[in-house]
């Protein structure tokens, strides 16, 4: 029997967000330190999966979701938000054009523009900060025997014992850490590296974007002792002619306030590709449509984003927004 139509594929595996994996590791490893008594096991459902993604709808105890919306011309950071100790649930900080300062227990954090950070836990139980995108600077008081302050950025995990540092998430799995005071341990794909004051660590070599033919000529010398590459990393790639995807994305973003239709068209054009910036553009298209009140277009773009880029950096945000749109339309 022949069948000329395309067969339907098996169901896709829906990925879990980075925060869920980071939380799982933290709970499992903490539980392994406790003698095997089931009664002390912390149920993960204390932090339901969508407590972060759909906080407003689920009614979870999420504190201080601070969003510094686009306020062109305001260069000063938004006022610091104190979340205090004893956090009942995770907190998410997402910034627009302006940075935001957050006090979380005994840690002071500056979240850079166009960044998103999720904070969970308390100083005396251990804190987990997941950098979803962008960068953030941390000033963490010495732990003095208390559980560590952990930062997750992509596949890199930073264990802070009392220090000042800046963490930047570069790509889905990559990150960079610069320590100004104290010492941290960075774990990346099982390899642990200690980074002390004045040192920098990155999972990829820093590359200066040029329009030259190959990137090797513009690669800065690798950082001594802390230059940690993925096993199959390559350092040469041909730079595309014309504007890069990031430049195209930035140009589209610059149009959002003055000419949102043009911004949408630019995002749509970029989203036809397969790069990380294409993914960002598709998400931005959905987000922009939502901000403009175009629910139908927002849902289509966000759903398409989740389908095409299930491991995209903004999948958690996209799901949260879709939940909100679905709830509003009922």
């Amino acid at each position: 029997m022949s069948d000329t139509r395309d067969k339907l594929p098996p169901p896709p595996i829906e990925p879990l967000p980075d925060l869920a994996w980071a939380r799982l590791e933290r709970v499992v490893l903490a539980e392994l330190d406790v003698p095997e008594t089931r009664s002390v096991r912390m149920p993960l459902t204390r932090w339901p999966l969508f407590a972060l993604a759909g906080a407003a709808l689920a009614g979870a105890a999420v504190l201080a979701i601070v969003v510094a919306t686009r306020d062109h011309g305001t260069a000063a950071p938004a006022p610091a938000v104190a979340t205090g100790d004893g956090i009942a649930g995770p907190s998410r900080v997402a910034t627009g054009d302006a940075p935001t300062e957050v006090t979380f227990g005994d840690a002071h954090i500056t979240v850079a523009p166009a960044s998103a950070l999720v904070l969970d836990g308390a100083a005396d139980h251990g804190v987990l900060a997941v950098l979803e995108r962008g960068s953030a600077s941390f000033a963490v008081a010495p732990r003095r025997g208390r559980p560590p302050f952990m930062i997750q950025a992509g596949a890199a995990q930073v264990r802070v014992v009392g220090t000042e540092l800046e963490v930047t998430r570069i790509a889905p799995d990559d990150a960079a850490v610069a320590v100004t005071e104290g010492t941290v341990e960075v774990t990346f794909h099982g390899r642990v590296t200690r980074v002390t004051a004045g040192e920098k660590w990155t999972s990829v070599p820093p590359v200066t974007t040029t329009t030259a033919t190959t990137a090797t000529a513009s690669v800065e010398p690798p950082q001594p002792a802390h230059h940690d590459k993925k096993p199959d990393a390559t350092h040469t790639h041909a730079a595309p002619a014309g504007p890069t995807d990031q430049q195209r994305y930035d140009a589209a973003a610059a149009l959002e306030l003055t000419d949102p239709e043009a911004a949408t068209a630019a995002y749509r054009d970029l989203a036809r590709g397969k790069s990380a910036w294409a993914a960002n553009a598709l998400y931005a298209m959905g987000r922009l449509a939502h901000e403009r009140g175009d629910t139908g277009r927002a849902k289509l773009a966000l759903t398409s984003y989740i389908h095409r880029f299930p491991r995209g950096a903004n999948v958690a945000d996209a799901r949260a927004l879709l939940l909100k749109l679905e709830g509003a339309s009922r």
Partner: protein
Amino acid sequence: MRAAAGDRAAQREVLTSQRVWVHRTLFRILGNNRDMEDLLQDTFLEVFRSLHRFRGDSSLGRWCSIIATRVAWAYLDRRRAVTQSLDLVDEPIDDGPDARRALVAREAARRLYAALDKLDPAMRIAFALAVIDDRSIAEVASLTGATKFATKTRVWRARRELFKRAQHDELLAQYLTDLEHRDE
């Protein structure tokens, strides 16, 4: 093994290297990520606590999958059937054939797992791993602790039940047929 001895870096490496496959096994059986974090926690805690019994006669991945399958089975035994709640797409972003096909596939998957919810855990797990995840009968048998004959029987019975339910559901019938003949 260092992880069994409590080496934290080794334990992290086990978590990192095995988590995707463990998640895949659980997801294929259950069809969604509801309660997934708890199930992953249960699985990995059991993995680490039983590592001292792992003799290396199979791969670590197989060991973890066996435990994940047991965790999923226990979960299915104690929970009530719930309605599948995959996010549904109203319309594709464009009218292209790929987008519509993805929409249809998603709905088909939802119906499939709704039908699987009606099966007993043994049949469901056998069908999910052998047919949906395309694993060999031998592998599924080893994961479930059953004989190959028993596994084949479970898959056959599951298929019969599902096609019975699909008599009035053309999309489900089509999907079941496509899964069975995907390599043809």
